[in-house]
């Protein structure tokens, strides 16, 4: 019995992480897959969402001699609805909005840049936010120590498998909502005009499209979803910690790999892709126990996932550059239900 609950706890935790990365991948799929925006600063929006959510769901901690403190909100101020503190819903919404607002201000000066320069600008922004600001603001962000003791929305009893499973179900529900939201938006005339911008921005402009504004909308909306994913990551990890522990360029890279493997432009595809990358990590951590590996392989196998990702990418780009699931044809489709008369 211990065996079964242990497996459930482990798989549920893994599943929730897949869901969190799937949200990031869906957001990047809007920005890159549909609009052609080379966002290389995913970790920045993700991390910002995670930090904001952490501050909203924890009590403030003053800086003591040995440990940096961080901002927070007195949790007694949040009323509980059906036994769940409203601080969580507030944290999720504010995390998404903060990331979106930041994206707006970053986009204003950088959106006119060509794709490659835009990538460098967003990468630089993410590094500045996480490495310069977050790390060096003890008293606000917890400095290099980050924020610990972030709770999860549902803590059913003390058994780990119950809390992990309920958290997985919550993330899965949110992922489904995000999926349908994005799918509806992308499979509309708006999605079609974004795709036109992606294919040929000059031509879209020559047809009277305000391409700057369209790119801005896509970028800001995508960043908001990245912030939302960050909030769920903070709950999952029960805390946040700055680079090099979390929110690094490697995380940004992982989301890119997910989108390329799954199929750029296909929302179902990137959710499948979101399974692959975390699975390689999940597998490489546990392989030494599963296969009773001896040294030196036992301590080295963890790093084989990096080789595996590289091999998968090369094989895919050579033989199936459109990803596992190619982009669907016929962008805009009348949805099953419409609003109004």
């Amino acid at each position, binding site marked *: 019995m211990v065996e079964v609950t242990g497996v459930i706890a482990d798989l549920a935790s893994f599943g929730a992480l897949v869901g969190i990365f799937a949200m990031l991948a869906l957001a990047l799929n809007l920005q890159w897959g549909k609009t052609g925006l080379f966002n290389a600063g995913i970790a920045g929006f993700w991390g910002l969402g995670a930090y904001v959510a952490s501050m909203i769901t924890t009590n403030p901690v003053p800086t003591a001699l040995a440990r940096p403190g961080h901002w927070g909100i007195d949790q007694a101020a949040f009323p509980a609805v059906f036994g769940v503190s409203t601080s969580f819903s507030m944290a999720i919404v504010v995390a998404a909005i903060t990331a979106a607002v930041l994206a707006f201000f970053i986009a204003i000066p950088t959106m006119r840049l060509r794709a490659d320069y835009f990538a460098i600008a967003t990468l630089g922004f993410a590094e500045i936010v996480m490495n310069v600001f977050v790390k060096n603001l003890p008293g606000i962000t917890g400095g290099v120590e980050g924020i610990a003791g972030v709770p999860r929305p549902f803590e059913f009893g003390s058994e780990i498998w119950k809390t992990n499973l309920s958290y997985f179900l919550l993330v899965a529900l949110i992922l489904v909502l995000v999926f349908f939201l994005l799918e509806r938006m992308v499979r*509309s005339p708006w999605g079609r005009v974004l*795709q036109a911008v992606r*294919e*040929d921005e000059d031509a879209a402009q020559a047809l009277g499209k305000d391409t700057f504004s369209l790119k801005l909308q896509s970028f800001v909306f995508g960043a908001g979803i990245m912030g939302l994913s960050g909030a769920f990551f903070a709950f999952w990890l029960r805390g946040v910690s700055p680079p090099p522990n979390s929110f690094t360029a490697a995380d940004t890279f992982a989301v890119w790999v997910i989108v390329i493997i799954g199929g750029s432009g296909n929302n179902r595809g990137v959710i499948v892709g979101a399974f692959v990358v975390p699975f390689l990590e999940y597998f490489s951590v546990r392989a030494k126990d599963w296969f009773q590996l001896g040294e030196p392989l036992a301590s080295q196998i963890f790093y084989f996932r990096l080789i595996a990702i590289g091999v998968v990418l090369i094989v895919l780009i050579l033989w199936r550059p459109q990803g596992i699931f190619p982009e669907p044809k016929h962008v805009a489709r009348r949805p099953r239900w*419409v609003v109004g008369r």
Partner: protein
Amino acid sequence: MTADVPAVLRTDGVTKTFGGIRAVDRCSLAIHAGRITGLIGPNGAGKTTLFNLIAGLYAPDEGSISLRGERIDGRPPFEIVHKGVVKTFQIPREFRHLTVLENLMVASPDHPGERPVSALVGWRRVWDREEEIREKAAGVLSLVELDRLSDADAGELSGGQKKLLELARTLMLDPKVVLLDEPLAGVNPTLTGKLLGIIEGLRDRGSTFFMIEHDMDVVMKRCDHVIAMHQGRAIAEGSPEEVRQNELVMDAYLGG
């Protein structure tokens, strides 16, 4: 001859300099409604630069451009399109992974469904408008005889079909003036005839075309009015016959 028809598009002393080169140099000309006006001139005369200035891709250093008396120079390209001046590209710029029909539908102006919130909510009126646009696009496609290919990816079309698509896409905008940058370059004779037939048919229904063209045979036979440019300026204008016999034009072409 020119005075009795009102000018729809006018440039006054327009100048554009790139580094030390005056690509367009105090160029003044007028385009009259309901005509096909040809723009000729040797390579480097500034024809394409002038088109880009009119379309708003560059702002002129000096001078003004006006559409029916309203200044449009210095406005962003998408606003100029909304005011009714649409330019085609010399090399077709189709949206490769959209279908032929979608290429036309995406060109339609003022689609409420192109706003993210209405896309998310999915108003019925958005999708009703979408149907209207689909019907209009289908009509334009049959006009240019691409209706059989409406479901094909635009990237799969032949070079000539892409030229047709390029023209069809601009028609979705109901433009007041269409700027055609070498619409016949690299097009076979049969398709040339078809394209010119479509353009003339639209002209007869009141559309105005301003066309850069190198094929003198086409310019002489098909244009209603011709403007010749040399070294950034309009050096002659008039009927095709008048321009052909103009000495300045002959000198320009013979390297004068």
